[in-house]
């Protein structure tokens, strides 16, 4: 089972990376951008997807400062996606 975990800074916690990106975009001419947040993406191949929440709580995320979202079933594997999209080196 392919899974993807999206990890974001919790709402209300200062996200200086998101702010830096938000400030950089207008400098390139992209206007009307707001609420930018930068997080982390973890891709996994798991045999038992019921273990994913525990993995997130114990290691992949720090629930005190981050929130996570688990996606399963529709994500291509790492290498597969790269070759499909022609982005492999």
């Amino acid at each position: 089972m392919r899974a993807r975990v999206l990890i974001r800074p919790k709402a209300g916690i200062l996200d200086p990376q998101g702010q830096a990106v938000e400030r950089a975009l207008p400098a390139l001419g992209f206007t009307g951008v707001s609420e930018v947040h930068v997080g982390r993406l973890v891709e996994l191949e798991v045999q038992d997807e019921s273990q994913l929440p525990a993995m997130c709580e114990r290691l992949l995320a720090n629930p005190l400062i981050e929130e996570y979202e688990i996606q399963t079933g529709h994500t291509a594997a790492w290498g597969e996606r790269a070759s499909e999209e022609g982005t492999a080196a």
Partner: protein
Amino acid sequence: MKFGVIRFPGTCDDVDAQLAAARVGEAALLWHRDRDLQGVDVVIVPGGFSYGDYLRAGAIARFAPVMESVIEFAHEGGLVLGICNGFQILCECGLLPGALLVNDHLKFVFRQVRLDVVDHNTPFTRNCPPSLSIPVKHTTGRYYSPEPVQVVLRYAPGENPNGSQDDIAGVVNNAGNVFGLMPHPEHAVDALTGSTDGLTIFESLRTAVGERVPVA
């Protein structure tokens, strides 16, 4: 008295911590895969980049075999000092409240800072003067806790190097036997490097251990 300094792969301040501790007592290195704490009185979790700081600073180190023994040691009242990456590890493993976030300015900061000792009634600060001059060097030092915490050290007004909540530089747990701080007292023990204020933290520990009633 005997200090034990933990060495993880990627730790880089273990030798300075050991040299600093050796000025007030015995100091041994403890390897991350060993569970035996060698009968030390104080465990120091030093600074650096344990396990490369992959995922989050301190996130992997908290599962090291030695940390199981450190957690047990702390629950039995043993004295634990976490410096910088060590502070991050103690927060990740739940021995201390809160978490450390990337500095608000996103940059690595390395400079001498002035600290106010706001609690002298701890085994870590009893011999400290009211104010300390100690260096910080980190990228992930912005302390955050949604709950009230027992603050021991604050950055002096105007000195906050990372956007830390309420200028917090160091906290203890409720029991008062586990202390974490972002500044590096082990780098401030010799006049040659500008300050010996860090030594007062190690001296406080010697005093505290000396006064402890031996367990029957």
